[in-house]
C-alpha cells in the first residue's frame, strides 16, 4: 500500500495528487528497472523540440505543394489539442488494482482502476496512444503532428481541423478531449 502524496501543478491552485510508489514498506514497484521495463515494452518517449515543430510545418507545406501546386500557405492552420484526464483514459488489469492502493486519512483506502500520477510506467504506456493518434492523423488528414504524452500539436489545412478531434474521440471516447485547453480554430501559419 502506498502513501498519498501531492505536488504542485501549473495553473491549478489545487495541485495534483500522487501515489508515492517509490516510498513503500514492501517491494517498490517504482524503480529504475520497472521504468526501463515499461519503456522497453511500450517504447521510449521522445519529447518533441521546437525544431521538430518547425520542421513539421515545413515538411507538411512541402508535401502539400507536391500534392497540389495551388495549395495556399494562408490556408494552413496550426492547432493544439489536449486530452481530458489522459491517465484515466485506460485502465489497470483487475488483478493489479490492489498494487496501487493508497492509504488516505480516516482509515480509508483509495483503489484506482485507472492510471495514477506517480506510477513510472504510465507515460510510456500512454505514448502508445499518442503514437497511434499521430499515425492516424497523418494517414487520414495527411496532417503532420507532434505529440508528447497527451499534448498534441499539428498542422493541416483549415477544412480538416474538425476531423482531428473526431479521430481522438473515436479511439478514446466522447469525453476524451479537453476542449478548454484545445484550440482547433487554428492559428494561421
Amino acid at each position: 500500500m502506498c502513501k498519498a502524496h501531492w505536488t504542485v501543478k501549473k495553473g491549478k491552485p489545487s495541485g495534483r495528487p500522487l501515489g508515492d510508489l517509490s516510498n513503500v514498506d514492501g517491494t517498490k514497484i517504482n524503480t529504475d528497472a520497472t521504468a526501463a521495463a515499461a519503456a522497453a515494452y511500450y517504447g521510449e518517449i521522445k519529447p518533441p523540440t521546437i525544431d521538430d515543430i518547425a520542421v513539421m510545418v515545413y515538411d507538411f507545406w512541402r508535401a502539400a505543394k507536391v500534392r497540389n501546386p495551388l495549395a495556399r500557405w494562408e490556408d494552413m492552420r496550426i492547432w493544439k489539442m489536449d486530452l481530458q484526464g489522459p491517465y484515466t483514459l485506460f485502465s489497470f488489469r483487475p488483478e493489479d488494482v490492489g498494487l496501487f492502493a493508497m492509504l488516505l486519512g480516516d482509515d480509508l483506502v483509495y483503489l484506482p482502476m485507472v492510471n495514477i500520477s506517480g506510477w513510472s510506467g504510465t507515460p510510456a504506456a500512454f505514448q502508445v496512444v499518442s503514437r497511434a493518434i499521430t499515425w492516424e492523423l497523418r494517414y487520414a488528414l495527411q496532417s503532420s503532428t507532434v505529440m508528447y504524452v497527451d499534448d498534441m500539436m499539428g498542422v493541416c489545412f483549415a477544412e480538416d481541423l474538425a476531423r482531428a478531434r473526431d479521430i481522438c474521440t473515436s479511439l478514446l471516447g466522447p469525453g476524451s478531449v479537453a476542449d478548454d485547453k484545445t484550440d482547433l480554430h487554428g492559428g494561421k501559419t
Partner: protein
Amino acid sequence: VGGSLFSVGSQTTEADLRELLKEAADSAKDDYGPESAVAWAEGYTSPPEYVTNDVACLEASQRDFEAMVQQRLDGMAPGRLNGERVARLKPNDPELTLLIDLVGGMELRLPEGLKTNGMMPRTDRRPIYETVAFAVNKMLRAIVDQRLAFLQPLDMAQRHV
C-alpha cells in the same frame, strides 16, 4: 521580412515578438503551493455515501474485489478505449498490437519476486499529505465520483483486496 514562406510586408514588429515570448515564459511560471491547495479545499467534507456505496458494491460481488473491478470496467467499456474502437483504426497502424494489449489493462512489468506490504503505519504518512489532505481527498474523490476508483475502509481492503 519576406521570402518564399512569409508574406512580404508583415506588420509584426520586434516588440510584438518580444511580448509573445514574454507571455510564453509567464505561462510556465507557477505561483501555487500547499497554501493554495489548502484554500482550494477549505470546507470540503467527504460524503459518507462514497464509502458505503463501494462497500455495498464489494458485498454484492461476494467480496471478490477483482470481480467487482472487472464488472465496473465492463460497464464503462463502451465510452472508453475498447476493442471496437481500436478495430476502427487502419489495419496497418503500427500500434495496433500494443493498443489491443492496453484495452485489457496496462502491462505492469513488475519487479521479480514482488511482495506487497499489505498495510502502512498511520504515522508514516507523508508530511505534505497531512498538510494538504483535504485537497488530495477532494481530487481523488472526484475520480471516485466518475466511478474510476473505489474507496474502502482499511480493514475491508486488507481482507479482500
